[in-house]
């Protein structure tokens, strides 16, 4: 496990169609933290994660990894950094035609040399491990099923198993439990918490389940309309914070306010 220090400095992201998804975001995460990003739909959470894992480039600002700006890092090191990071995508990003097991195994490709990697010769050790992980997320029997035949939650769990297969130092989890029932969801979060505590993995999560986010994280970052509006521990969350994060007209779900909302 190589510890990673992540600093985000004043990043902006505007898409080609002039939608500004993120504006002046700065925060830093130290190794071993469990941080949750929360915010309304369209706030820019997924975009933030995609910037962090390098799928998109930011328009302004910079991301520092162990104090080096990401764009200046030499290729070899960047690869190393990427190897230590894995992402659970909101839309899963699985290979639909491949089986569950194959998808999980692809996570070991970065550690393999070229030809075995191309030919997909994973070896028994890796396969064993992938099967174990699949069992842990409750997909042991779907091992050989092509991903396109899985239910929403099963796909999500495959994506989770793939991310964990990497044994990352930094785990970016974009809505990892959105499609899971409360019990499985809780189990998955416990699993994440577990690896965070035991192995010191940094977890940056993003979830619409406020309760679970508060329960499992050390720290919450509130995003609204592309800006950080809150950054603090779960204890600091209160009605007015919720209102700043989710918008003014919002009804605090903490209070379980059951009266109808004028939409």
């Amino acid at each position: 496990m190589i510890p990673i220090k992540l600093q985000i400095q004043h990043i902006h992201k505007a898409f080609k169609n002039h939608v500004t998804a993120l504006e002046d975001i700065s925060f830093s995460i130290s190794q071993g933290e469990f941080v949750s990003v929360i915010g309304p739909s369209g706030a820019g959470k997924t975009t933030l994660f995609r910037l962090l894992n390098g799928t998109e480039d930011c328009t302004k600002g910079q991301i520092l990894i162990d104090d080096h700006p990401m764009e200046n890092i030499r290729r070899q090191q960047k690869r190393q950094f990427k190897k230590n990071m894995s992402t659970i995508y909101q839309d899963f990003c699985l290979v639909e035609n491949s089986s569950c097991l194959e998808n999980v195994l692809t996570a070991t490709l970065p550690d393999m040399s070229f030809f075995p990697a191309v030919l997909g010769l994973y070896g028994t050790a890796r396969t064993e491990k992938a099967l174990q992980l699949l069992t842990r997320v409750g997909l042991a029997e779907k091992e050989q099923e092509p991903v396109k035949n899985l239910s929403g939650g099963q796909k999500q769990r495959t994506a989770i198993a793939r991310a964990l297969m990497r044994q990352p130092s930094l785990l970016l989890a974009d809505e990892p439990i959105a499609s899971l029932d409360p019990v499985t969801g809780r189990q998955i979060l416990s699993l994440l918490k577990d690896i965070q505590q035991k192995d010191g993995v940094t977890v940056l999560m993003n979830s619409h389940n406020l309760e679970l986010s508060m329960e499992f994280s050390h720290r919450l970052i509130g995003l609204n309309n592309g800006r950080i509006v809150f950054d603090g521990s779960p204890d600091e969350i209160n009605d007015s914070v919720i209102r700043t994060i989710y918008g003014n007209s919002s009804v605090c779900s903490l209070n379980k306010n059951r009266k109808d909302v004028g939409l």
Partner: protein
Amino acid sequence: MTRSSKNRWKGLACFLLFLCLFLFTVVYTQCDPVLFWKRRSHLTDLLSGMFPMDFAYIPHILTPLFYTIQMSVTGTVIGSVLACILAPACAGSMDFPKWIRYVLRFLIQILRSFPALILALCATFLFGLGTFAGTFAITLYTFAIMTRLTYQDMEAASPLAYQALRTMGVSRFPAYIHGLFPEIAPSFFTNALYMLETNVRHSSILGYVGAGGIGLLLNEKISWLEYEKVGAILLVLFLAVFTIENLSRYLAALIRKECTLKKKYIKLLLFFLTALFVVCTITLSPPDFGRTSLQTMKNMFSGFLSPDWSFFFSTKKDGLFTLILETLCIAFAGTVIGTVFSIPLSFVNTRRFVPGSVAFIFNLLIIAIRSIPFLIYGLIFIRVSGPGPFTGVLTLSMCSIGLLTKRFTEALDAIDLKAYRALLAMGVHPVPAICHGILPQLKPIFISIFLYRFDVNIREASVLGLVGAGGIGAPLIFSMNQYAWEKAGAILLGLILLVWLIDMISVKINHIL
């Protein structure tokens, strides 16, 4: 609202522009539907001559068919494997270095511009007469086409899983093999088998390398007006195409995991296919370097490198410019007409939209359309419309229907039907459901298939030449026959530039749409 109506106007403008272009080309190539209708009785008189087929002739076809298949199998396999390896570096949606992409695309562009006959000639001058030279030519030809088709598929496929692997630090090539290839594999294998089929059908070049191929036999029987025998050859071709087509469908379904096969049988199948490849390869005649004709090769290439500039820049009636314009018009009109027929045909050609029996019948029809070589179409249409560009347009339309329907069907088989099914579940009639649930997804794919076929049609101008349809084909063939390589070089350069230009335009078009 303003933005939406603006979009609609833009769409309408594009459509009108397209229509105008089409009308211009139709007029320029002297297309005359009235004449076509008046002389339609001649459409069938050549075909009817093929019945009853001369079954006794079939045994004569088998040896050339074997040679053809032998060379085609080896060439197609090697060419496709090379394509599979190099295609990702050409795809814009992947993060391979840009310069590699440009260099490779350029090379492939050039390679594809060379008529197969020139490749075959080069190969024989280098390796001597024999199956090796033929295989070499087929390999190059297949490689160029397969690379193009494959990177096009890649650009249409969703890159999400590939990107996910890349962010984990997987190197490009393994990420491509495991993250993207499984998604395009069905169409990759159908394309490869389609190439095999094309190579078997258009194997006339194989005759010129001393291997007899079924194409030469066909040319001979056509020229001698022995239509019963032509019929027999076509029947054999039909069966070959039918077999390959079904094999490819089955393979695609297997890859998409739509049907399953026991591990044991998969191994058996793999073993059988490998064995076939190995047998075909080791029975090839070894190259004969003792009789290479380097001087001729040198002439050929120095000719290509110093093209005939006065011809190149000539604006006269027999200059390059007029010829290319004519070729462009024939190719455009032919491709558009082909497309108009293929789109509906492709929908009834797949089990996803129509019942199995209907799909089967149309599939037979399309296989039949495809197994008839362009020469026969040329002759059929020449009887109707006489020599001239109109015949070229008609012939190209028919040839285009084969490939276009195949590619469209493939795109339809690969596409995500979720949205379409959602519309059906709301009670939308299937036709509007296709228009709004599927076409928007397919539009970019269809457009790129259309543009691809357009570009193939321009390059296959030599085909046009063979049916006497004007354009650049005849001068190209003629200068090749005369070994006037400077002139051939000028024509090829013109073609390369033209196709490059079209490529640029098509990239722009894909951007806009």
